[in-house]
């Protein structure tokens, strides 16, 4: 009996093939932290790729599990709305009074002007200017790490690097930069984040911290609204004619800035951690990489596919729609499971294997498609590329020496802790 089968028998999740199809509920957060979700999605892709779950913690919902169907839904913003929310959970109770609009959860035309206002910060031209700075910082982070003793890669590298990148894109006061990480974690906090301090946080405490976040941003907004040359997110929003009036609804500023923090935080952080884990689990790929560092860009795409840092995005149907022989009804909740589509063997060759030099490595769903496609995709890729280039310059191996602790979430595929030991290159 293989380890995987052994493991499955000891968990609380039933074998997905033993359940009637209508009882398959892939929204249970525990499935993901236990890494038990893979076979659930495998069965859905094979037997019922557009699947209706009539009853779950989040109410009834459709699951879209095949690559091509996900692209079709994701690019059809006229039928599948992002208005109000883009995750499987509906806004929590009482959230109506604490409404923080953000453009990811808007439809055109409002979405378009707000997204376009902040895009220049993460467009290739601006990133090219930032590359040297990011490389210096990556080198410093790596050079400050302890050698020969175990430490937490997530805290020292994944969080630190992404936080520094965010601080740069916001032109945020450097010493306060970990506030950005905290606000990101708080804004995605909820009872499903078992094992973190955020699981038990009261709604009151959460709001109080987000109010502090807003006050901080408003101070920066005030300083920068006269600065037409600024290319940081805050200056861009505060000076763009289409968005500068956002100051009349500060919660919309908060919503959008939170979106940009979360978008640049969890995603790259978990790709950094998850990629290292994948290389440790696939030592032949690690050897392949060391033998040919020119594979870094292709490996970066493969890591992003492999990790799928955000497992899903949710839409709401604005009209009846036929797909995969099913009729989604107007008003239904529709969940596109990127994490499933990224393992669809009709679209990706040997999808359950981590292959750093695979053909068409960029062809994955992790950034989404259509008008809401990840705006920061090139920032994330750049950070991973530079990090791996500099790791290869210094270390023969970055060895994972203990279990990776995973977040209980059906949205963020998070690794919260992962002990490693560095093995420097021999001189």
């Amino acid at each position, binding site marked *: 009996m293989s380890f995987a089968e052994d493991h499955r028998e000891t968990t609380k999740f039933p074998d997905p093939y033993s359940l009637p199809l209508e009882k398959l509920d892939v929204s249970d957060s525990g499935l993901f932290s236990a890494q038990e979700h893979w076979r659930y999605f495998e069965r859905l892709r094979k037997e019922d790729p557009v699947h209706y779950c009539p009853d779950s913690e989040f109410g009834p919902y459709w699951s879209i599990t095949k690559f091509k169907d996900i692209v079709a839904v994701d*690019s059809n913003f006229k039928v599948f709305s992002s208005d109000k929310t883009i995750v499987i959970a509906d806004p929590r109770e009482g959230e109506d009074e604490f409404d923080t609009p953000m453009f990811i959860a808007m439809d055109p035309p409002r979405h378009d002007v707000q997204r376009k206002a902040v895009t220049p910060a993460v467009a290739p031209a601006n990133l090219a200017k930032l590359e040297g700075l990011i490389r210096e910082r990556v080198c410093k982070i790596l050079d400050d790490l302890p050698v020969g003793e175990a430490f937490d890669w997530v805290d020292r590298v994944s969080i630190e690097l992404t936080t520094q990148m965010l601080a740069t894109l916001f032109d945020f006061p450097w010493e306060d930069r970990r506030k950005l990480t905290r606000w990101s974690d708080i804004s995605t906090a909820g009872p499903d984040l078992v094992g973190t301090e955020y699981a038990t946080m009261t709604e009151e405490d959460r709001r109080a911290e987000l109010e502090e976040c807003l006050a901080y941003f408003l101070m920066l907004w005030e300083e920068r609204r006269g600065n037409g040359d600024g290319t940081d997110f805050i200056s861009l929003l505060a000076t763009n004619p289409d968005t500068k009036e956002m100051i009349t609804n500060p919660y919309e500023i908060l919503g959008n800035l939170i979106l940009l923090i979360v978008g640049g935080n969890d995603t790259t952080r978990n790709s950094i951690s998850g990629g290292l884990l994948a290389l440790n689990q696939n030592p032949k790929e690690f050897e392949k990489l060391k033998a040919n560092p020119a594979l870094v860009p292709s490996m970066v795409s493969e890591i992003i596919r492999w990790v799928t840092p955000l497992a899903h995005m949710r839409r709401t149907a604005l009209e009846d729609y036929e797909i995969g022989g099913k009729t989604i009804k107007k008003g239904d909740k529709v969940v596109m499971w990127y994490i499933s589509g990224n393992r669809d063997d009709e679209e990706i060759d040997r999808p359950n294997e981590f292959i750093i030099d695979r053909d068409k490595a960029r062809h994955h769903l992790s950034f989404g498609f259509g*008008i809401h496609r990840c705006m920061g995709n090139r920032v994330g890729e750049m950070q991973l590329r530079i990090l791996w280039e500099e790791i290869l310059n210094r270390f023969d191996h970055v060895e994972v020496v203990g279990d990776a602790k995973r977040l209980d979430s059906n949205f963020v595929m998070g690794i919260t802790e992962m002990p490693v030991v560095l093995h420097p290159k021999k001189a």
Partner: protein
Amino acid sequence: MATVTFIEGNGTEHTVTVDNGLSLMEAAVNNMVPGIDADCGGACACATCHVYVEPAWETKAGDKSDMEETMLDFAEGTQGNSRLACQIKISDELDGLVVRLPEAQF
């Protein structure tokens, strides 16, 4: 069958021969022309196959669909002659087509 030329941002030219019915994006990808990412694989859903069609060829390259206009609207550095290469179908009429590539796809 048509012969088409891609000119990179740095001026490097790539001339390739391509069968009718394929897309201009496939013409680039199948012939390893750099600078066309084509992340979505031709679904008009990502704008990473952005090209500038030389003015003489704009009409022959055909009209943009609403979706193509929408995706181009979110790309960087677009101009009136911007197109998504996955939405241009190769035919005899396009024999000799010349397109320029942006500095970077976004």
